[in-house]
């Protein structure tokens, strides 16, 4: 770990930023888990709590940003300290976006009130969410410990989530083609899956930020790209 600053209050500022981000991380994890549970159980009360929880994470992100700007103005951080502050800004941004995506999922819960609820599809979405949660947990630990190895593992792990999303899309398409009455539900579920896939992308962003904080440069090789959902589907091989 680093030596202490001559100005001790600077260390306290940086620590405070890291702790705020960690707190946001815990909130984001809970929002992901709750939003998918609300979806699976069609629990409207839980969905409402997710929407409220998103407001809280927004507020904390705002706080973190203010604190970061103040730290820059007050301490004029250089080198690793500057990357620390910039890192906190970027990570808090990604966590805030994860909150938004969880809220989007929660909002769809009320719309899913038909009879058609194939458990297999729901399980697929849940499984994706479990993977993303694992990625987020791991990357938050990497952030707290400035751990390159874990950050890189998360960065590479996103491929799997993208692949799952693509296969889920194909499956949803078959249901929609089978019976047009399934379309509404399937479209909602498709958006939910896409939201979860986007959460995975934010976890990847955080991994990139951790790498930048430690190394002072971007991850060099091109990111593995498994997600072909944007034009997937129809050209399935």
């Amino acid at each position, binding site marked *: 770990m680093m*030596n*202490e600053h001559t100005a001790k209050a*600077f260390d306290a500022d940086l620590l405070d930023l890291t702790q705020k981000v960690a707190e946001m991380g815990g909130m984001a994890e809970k929002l992901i888990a709750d939003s998918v549970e609300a979806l699976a159980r069609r629990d409207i009360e839980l969905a409402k709590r997710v929407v409220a929880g998103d407001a809280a994470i927004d507020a904390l992100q705002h706080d973190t940003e203010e604190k970061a700007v103040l730290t820059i103005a007050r301490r004029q951080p*250089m*080198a690793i300290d*500057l990357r620390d502050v910039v890192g906190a800004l970027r990570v808090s941004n990604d966590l805030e976006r994860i909150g938004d995506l969880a809220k989007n999922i929660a909002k769809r819960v009320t719309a899913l009130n038909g009879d058609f609820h194939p458990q297999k599809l729901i399980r697929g979405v849940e499984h994706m969410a479990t993977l993303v949660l694992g990625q987020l947990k791991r990357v938050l630990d990497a952030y707290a410990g400035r751990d390159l190895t874990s950050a890189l593992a998360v960065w590479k792990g996103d491929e799997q989530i993208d692949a799952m999303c693509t296969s889920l899309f194909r499956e949803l398409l078959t249901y929609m083609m089978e019976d047009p009455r399934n379309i509404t539900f399937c479209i909602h579920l498709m958006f939910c899956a896409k939201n979860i896939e986007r959460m995975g992308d934010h976890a990847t962003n955080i991994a990139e930020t951790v790498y930048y904080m430690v190394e002072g440069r971007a991850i060099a090789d091109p990111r593995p790209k498994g997600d072909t959902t944007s034009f997937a589907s129809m050209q399935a091989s």
Partner: protein
Amino acid sequence: MNSMVQVKHSEAVGAAPGIGVKPKVIARDVNVYYGEKHALKSVDLDVPERSVTALIGPSGCGKSTFLRCINRMNDTIPIARVTGKIEIDERDIYDPTLDVVQLRARVGMVFQKPNPFPKSIYENVAYGPKIHGFARSKAELDEIVTTSLQKAGLFEEVKDRLNESGTSLSGGQQQRLCIARAIAVSPEVILMDEPCSALDPIATAKIEELMDELRANFTIIIVTHSMQQAARVSQRTAFFHLGILVEEGATETMFTTPRDRRTQDYITGRFG
């Protein structure tokens, strides 16, 4: 498969740092002793032409000592002994046949405390060109004084009172007068030893702005205690510690991703 090998760290190769342009000043294995004290230890540095190089480091690390090697000011300190090689435009400046007075005209210096002569503003600037015989007539001398004051960003403020004493100016103006005085003899290199540490923030900003303009025509080496100033004005930064040149590189790299732990500790304020 692309078989090309991309060399990313050009700096890692060879003894001379990869500064990309022709170096104006080259220092090799420069040592300075004050009596028994070994104040500067085997310094190697390339200073690129027409740019600002900042020397940073804690007090007493040898920044001023190094600066004084470049115009042989250490010659004036009886106990000082300099070894190694310093070249300007590939010419050894410690060559015994070299004219030191001419060298000091080519390498101007600006000090921490503005030190105008107790003479008129005009005389302050005209003095150097006069003793070096740069002007053949009063008209030519007037011309040199005017353009030097203009380049130093002072002319508009003093054009109506060129006969007033240089010491009647504000601190910031005095420092710009000293810069005009240095410029008047058409130097190629300008050394500045903490030129802003006695100035307020506005006067400092004016000098920094001036340095940015001057680097189009001059090679500037500045010692500064302000990390922010080094980051703002320089293209290259060299960090000294305990008489050693620890690390040198592009300023943007030095202040974002320094390689050496000691540099990192210093610029982030972790030095005890």
